[in-house]
């Protein structure tokens, strides 16, 4: 060891910084008490620390006071700006509940206001019974083909598209109903109306208006003329089941009824043929009603049918113009 260096000089800093174990530190301190180089290094480090500590005067009271005022003002501003956590959660919760309530109210109102779309359900019974649905303009067409029994349920509002059931031997105008159609040999053999009302337009025959509870079956063959007249006259009474050009809109039944053959008490009287003059009137009125309701094509078809049925009818000239479209 020389007067200017010591091999344990590095331990001065190590002891100061806590790099030595307790044992090494004690050993070094004993050495430093005798080693002038190490003790001088210790004093130099201590002087440096003292100079550094004296470098900054104590903080000015005025500076601290202003700093405190500034801090408190900033904290107050922040506290005033931020609502408490509880109230923030409450505001969020209430807002969410209000939004949900409005959404549900809107959905409910929309549901109430939106009219149900036309609903058509057809169930066919029979090996060859089948049906199809198609749209022609603003009319929904249900076409029944071949033999079978067809239970038909139609739900529609007055603004919904018109629904017409096409049969091999005619058509049925629906007025919002549940009814059953039976076909045999491509002929309608039975029409049972459970709810609402229909108008049955038979080809080469009179239209029949059937309300809930009415049952229609084909006419009996060749009844005596007098009886036929009587029967037809009775069928044209206000409660008749014959066609009405524009039947009044019936109230929709409150409870859906199952399709079943009505009891004999509710069954409408069998529709019998009116005299030829009345049949011609009915056919003429039907053509006119179709024209007035804007169904020109159907009116034309009905006009042709009229001319076929009543070739010498007293309105044949007028109907001929309709049939030929002149």
């Amino acid at each position, binding site marked *: 060891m020389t007067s200017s260096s010591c091999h344990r000089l590095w331990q001065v800093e190590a002891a100061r*910084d806590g790099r030595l174990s307790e044992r090494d530190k004690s050993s070094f301190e004993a050495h430093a008490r005798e080693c002038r180089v190490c003790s001088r290094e210790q004093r130099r480090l201590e002087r440096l*620390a003292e100079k*550094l*500590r004296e*470098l900054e005067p104590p*903080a000015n009271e005025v500076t601290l006071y202003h700093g*405190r005022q500034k801090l408190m003002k900033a*904290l*107050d501003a922040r*506290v005033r700006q931020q609502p408490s956590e509880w109230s923030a959660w409450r505001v969020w919760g209430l807002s969410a509940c209000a939004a949900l309530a409005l959404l549900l109210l809107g959905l409910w109102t929309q549901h109430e206001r939106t009219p149900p779309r036309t609903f058509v359900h057809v169930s066919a019974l029979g090996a060859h019974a089948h049906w199809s649905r198609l749209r022609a303009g603003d009319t929904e067409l249900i076409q029944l083909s071949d033999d079978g029994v067809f239970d038909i349920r139609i739900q529609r509002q007055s603004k919904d598209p018109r629904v017409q059931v096409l049969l091999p031997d005619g058509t049925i105008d629906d007025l919002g109903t549940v009814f059953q159609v039976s076909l045999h040999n491509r002929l309608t053999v039975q029409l049972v109306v459970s709810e609402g009302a229909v108008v049955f337009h038979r080809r080469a025959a009179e239209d029949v208006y059937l309300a809930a509870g009415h049952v229609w079956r084909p006419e009996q063959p060749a009844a005596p003329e007098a009886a036929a007249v009587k029967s037809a006259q009775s069928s044209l009474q206000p409660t008749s089941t014959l066609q009405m050009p524009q039947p009044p809109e019936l109230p929709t039944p409150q409870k859906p009824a199952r399709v079943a053959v009505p009891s004999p008490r509710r069954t409408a009287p069998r529709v019998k043929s009116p005299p030829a003059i009345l049949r011609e009137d009915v056919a003429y009125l039907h053509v006119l009603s179709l024209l007035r309701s804007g169904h020109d094509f159907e009116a034309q078809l009905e006009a042709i049918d009229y001319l076929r049925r009543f070739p010498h009818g007293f309105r044949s000239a007028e109907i001929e113009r309709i049939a030929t479209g002149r």
Partner: protein
Amino acid sequence: MSIAKRNVLQERSLPDAVLLSRVAVGDTVALGILYDRYAPALLKFARRVERQEAEDIVQTVFMRVLHLAVGFDVQAASARPWLYAITARVALERRRSILRWKTALTHFAKQPEPVVTDTSDVRRDLRTSLSRLSAAKRTVLVLAEVEGFSCYEIAEMLEIPVGTVWTRLHHARRELRDSQEEEA
């Protein structure tokens, strides 16, 4: 002695952990007591580490304490190391921010970086010598030699290995000594 004055004195003698738990729920009075207790020392420390921004740094530290108080370890005997750690971090952030601004402005103005004049007057001054150290070395040196924290405490405060603290401390002393010897 009035009851109010006695209450104030009692509050002022509350431990740091109690005060910080009150700060955590938004008690600004407790924060004010902590400010009175530690702001003078923190201001001195900040001046040594980042002279120009010291007051703003202390202000930022106590604003940050309002949010960080929730995470304070209530078992700790004192909040002193915790507060110094926040101060060191804020000072470092502030320095980086200033450097970014300086770089951006220099780039924008297309001016060369100003060269620090190496006059004997500047070097004679210990304060200038200290300011010439890197921020990392200066922070470690001040924390160890002026504030009296152990190297292990500094490592924990600055979230760096203790070996890094020892290295920085050694280099800081050497650079300062060289500067002082040149002065002599």
